[in-house]
């Protein structure tokens, strides 16, 4: 005879009642929920940045052959040219392909590093909707390169010009494309930095809080010494020695950012390690590692999760400010901080600074709203009433 009731299979997501209540609390926060969905949409779009803003067509058909230039590098000789990498924006190549087939372009025909040819004004050039008719006509003539057929009848107008929604920066890169790629790199950097530093911080705090005693005391002192080092100077010195790049920056920032969560997690562990159910688990013969993961860590997770969105935010702004100072990503990377810096050096081109500011403000605000909603959802006073 079996006494046990059949176990329900709950699908992949099995939520305890407490977590379900938290999820409901989160859903009830309209602002946080909307921010979450908007952010998620932006993030997913930016993850596929190559398919949204690129200087290569998504699909092309050339002489009956189906090509995927966005995924595959085709040599230019395929289309009658001689370079190793095809420049699909080159009027000659584009004309050749159009003559023997067709091309489907992404909505924005620039990648972050595409230099615009034949600009209507010297770089940084303004958005097309800010150009005068005269400038547009001159640009069309320049673009035609003496080919009279390429000039529309009547000399053309701004509508015939390739649209530049937010203009170009001082190197002739399209600003919209830069923003999309920059958003992606900022968010990814923020997530990875926050994730890795939380993991290290939680582990360190857990060990200190759970075992206590001399271990705790020694590590506390070490962390105090470590966190009183002047971060910025060390960063400047290190970035002079090492070539800054995504991974190098991540590692350098990680050296200091893991400390943030240690105190919090340590305090939670100090509190929870004497709970009766933790003692009961000890009496059952559970190993320390199991007790930490199964019984104590969930207590600390509430505090950690509450903090996490804010850590992501501060990671993003750290990267942005380093880029702004010129200590961050290498030149040519689509970083938002560098765009801000360009905006500062080209005050006559307000579309640079304004658009970078708007995107950074939007990104950080959305994350903060989500973070607030998460914090409120985990608030024990709301959970238990």
């Amino acid at each position, binding site marked *: 005879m079996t006494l046990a*009731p059949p176990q329900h299979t709950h699908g992949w997501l099995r939520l305890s009642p407490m977590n379900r209540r938290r999820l409901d609390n989160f859903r009830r926060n309209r602002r946080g929920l909307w921010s979450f969905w908007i952010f998620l949409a932006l993030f997913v779009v930016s993850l596929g940045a190559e398919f949204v803003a690129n200087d290569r067509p998504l699909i092309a058909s050339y002489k009956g052959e189906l090509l995927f230039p966005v995924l595959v590098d085709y040599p230019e000789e395929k289309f009658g040219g001689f370079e190793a990498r095809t420049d699909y924006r080159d009027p000659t190549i584009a004309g050749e392909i159009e003559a023997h087939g067709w091309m489907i372009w992404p909505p924005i025909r620039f990648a972050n590093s595409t230099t615009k040819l034949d600009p209507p004004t010297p770089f940084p050039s303004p958005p097309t909707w800010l150009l005068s008719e005269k400038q547009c006509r001159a640009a069309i003539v320049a673009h035609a390169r003496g080919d009279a057929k390429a000039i529309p009848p009547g000399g053309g107008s701004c509508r015939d010009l390739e649209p530049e929604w937010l203009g170009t920066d001082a190197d002739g890169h399209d600003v919209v494309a830069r923003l999309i790629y920059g958003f992606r790199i900022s968010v990814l950097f923020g997530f990875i930095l926050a994730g890795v530093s939380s993991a290290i911080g939680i582990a360190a705090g857990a060990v200190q809080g759970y075992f206590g005693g001399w271990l705790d005391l020694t590590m506390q002192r070490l962390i105090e010494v470590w966190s009183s080092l002047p971060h910025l100077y060390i960063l400047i010195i290190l970035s002079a020695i090492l070539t800054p790049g995504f991974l190098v920056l991540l590692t350098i920032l990680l050296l200091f950012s893991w400390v943030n969560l240690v105190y919090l997690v340590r305090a939670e562990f100090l509190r929870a390690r004497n709970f009766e159910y933790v003692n009961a688990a000890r*009496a059952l013969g559970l190993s320390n590692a199991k007790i930490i993961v199964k019984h104590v860590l969930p207590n600390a997770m509430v505090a950690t999760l509450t903090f996490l969105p804010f850590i992501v935010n501060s990671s993003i702004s750290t990267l942005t400010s380093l880029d702004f100072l010129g200590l961050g990503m290498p030149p040519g990377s689509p970083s938002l901080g560098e765009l801000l810096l360009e905006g500062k050096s080209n005050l006559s081109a307000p579309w640079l600074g304004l658009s970078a500011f708007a995107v950074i403000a939007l990104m950080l605000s959305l994350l903060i709203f989500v973070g607030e909603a998460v914090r409120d959802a985990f608030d024990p006073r709301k959970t238990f009433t």
Partner: protein
Amino acid sequence: MSAPLLSVRDLSVAFRQGDETHVVVDRVSFTLERGQALALVGESGSGKSVTAQSIVKLLPYPAASHPSGEVLFKGRDVLKMTDASLREMRGAGVTMVFQEPMTSLNPLHTIERQVGEIIALHGGRAASSRDRVIALLTEVGLADPASRLGAYPHQLSGGQRQRVMIAMALANRPDLFIADEPTTALDVTIQAQILALLKDLQAKLGMALLFITHDLGIVRKIAGDVAVMQKGRIVEAGKTAEVFDNPQHPYTKMLLAAEPKGEAPARDATAKPILEAKDVRVWFPIRHGFMRRTIGHVKAVDGVSLTVREGQTVGVVGESGSGKTTLGLAILRLIRSQGTIAYCGRGLSGLTVKQMRPLRRDMQIVFQDPYGSLSPRLSVAEIVEEGLIAQKTRLNAAERREAVAKALADTGVDPASMDRYPHEFSGGQRQRVAIARAMALDPKFVVLDEPTSALDMSVQAQIVDLLRDLQKRRALAYLFISHDLKVVRALASEIVVMRHGAVVESGPAHELFAAPKSEYTRALFAAAFAMEAEASDVVSQ
């Protein structure tokens, strides 16, 4: 005939929570005359404290509301009073003492100031002279009151604090004195003293006493009338003697029958010793100064020896702070100790944590608080099967579930509810789950650390029956730690009385209960069984 001092008619209390309204007190009526004592009895959640608090209108309005009824104090309806007249009534006409003496006094003020304040509030600054405060503190039996005036609450024991609270309540000679479980947080010996004091004062001052408690023994001792509450209603009321001798309502009958009963298994000195402890010591060093030199020790457990035999229970009794719990933890090697501990003849002292682990299967513990000892994040099935996983029993998931179901069924929990979470269970059921967790491993020795103290009286009796039943079926050896001598008597065949970490007296239960040898044990028994305070000074205040 004049109107009674306090007359509660059709009183209801409702609490609003979100969109729902819960009625916690449902049309309660009773009257209380000057010089009389009425006890409101009921288990936790029966609405007795809420009733008492609505008499002085102390509930969190507007979350709380009174859908019906009136509270007439000296002919005036308290529920309709203005804030000003309410303040005038509280502290002068009606006063209240709460359960928790640790938090009822302001920790930042001296006793003199706190007692003086209440006098000044209603009688003017001049009335609150030092002599008056001393007189009050003498009245409530605080030893050496003159030297205690400058003391802060943390310098006093729980019993002394409760005396100060009573002094504050009596300062303005109230007509009605409400005591809301004033002795629940205190040790039995202190409880007996406080009860004696309250009874004495009530007779002397001729005030009315409304006494709220869950303990029927106290009711018999202190109140002439009793009202039994269940789920917000008064189910039976009358003279205490009549109600107790001839209860009409089934709930009252159940409450009266709820005292832990039954005989402990007979003592058998030849049974196989499961656990032997010799001269167990747990000393915590007191460190002082810059170099943290050890200048002395807090002797939490000081040289305790005992033997627990198969199928037998050793009861460890004593007041709070006597080191009972520490002893239990030390024996299971959950805290560091000196002395020898042997399990089935095998010494445990030198074993590492890893070597201890397989033995944990045979030695289990059940804690006092069924709310704290179950992780709120795990389902009951997960909680119970945890030990089975940790002990690497070669069971697959289905077999484990079956073992969990069996352990739950054994302890009287419906196995069908094993996928629910602890908060969906009542206190008694939670304690059964905690016992099931220990029993799932099929242990030989179990430390029961006050397993019944946090439970209602009727549930206590059930848990005691369950424990005895399990012991009989599985030949378990128990180390039963409790301050509740009635429960101990129902389970233990051998008793160890502890005080300040050391053993005062030990021996076979029937001998000890029949003829306690030491003064302290005698005082403890008198307080526990008859609620009588010993005149001698063997127990502290």
